[in-house]
């Protein structure tokens, strides 16, 4: 392996993120998190794509909100190794 720097964060091996699931999504998945390694340069939309590929993805809202490190993020938000991502079902607080 060469030591050439990549354009994104993370090692050459990829960006490890934890995708947290809640409420109806956690129930549909039967779990509350998916650990995944994405290619360098991955963005929030790539984490969402992992979830859309799951067998229970029919339960997802048309455009689920995505959070990165506990803050709502846009689809093109860059991910870094160790980031916490969450797919947020339609909310019902208050």
């Amino acid at each position: 392996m060469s030591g050439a720097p990549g354009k994104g964060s993370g090692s050459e091996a990829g960006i490890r993120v934890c995708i947290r699931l809640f409420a109806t999504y956690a129930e549909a998945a039967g779990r509350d998190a998916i650990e995944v390694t994405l290619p360098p340069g991955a963005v929030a939309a790539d984490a969402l794509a992992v979830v859309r590929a799951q067998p229970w993805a029919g339960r997802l809202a048309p455009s689920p909100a995505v959070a990165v490190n506990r803050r709502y993020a846009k689809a093109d938000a860059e991910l870094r190794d160790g980031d916490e991502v969450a797919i947020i079902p339609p909310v019902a607080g208050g």
Partner: protein
Amino acid sequence: MSGWLTDQPIDVARLVADVASAGSGGTVVFLGTVRRSEADGDVEAIEYSAYQEMADAELGRIVAETRARWPEVRIALRHRTGLVPLGEASVVIAASAPHRAEAYAASRFLIEETKRRAPIWKKERLATGAARWVEGRPAGG
């Protein structure tokens, strides 16, 4: 538990006391309470669940934004998680200000933003023992 979330019944009098001050001419208290509508049938309680770490952060941001817009308003807010029986408050907001207009406006902003942004969900618990998720609204933020 964080400053904004609690799994215990909310002490409304305590929140009112928290925002009291000699400069306060008006205090607005909002309670969001578990209700039963005809369509809901035999709802006995609502179970609230949250992405706790983010709910704490997002509620903190909402309160900070409120303070920035209405600097003279004193604010207290609690949102409950876990099982909340019919009639009890799931969220309480207390806002005091020298004049009532700011207290009303800040209180309104707080509840509307909380409902729009806080990563919190609810599941109805029915008298039959069954449970059903309440449909939410697209999370804004």
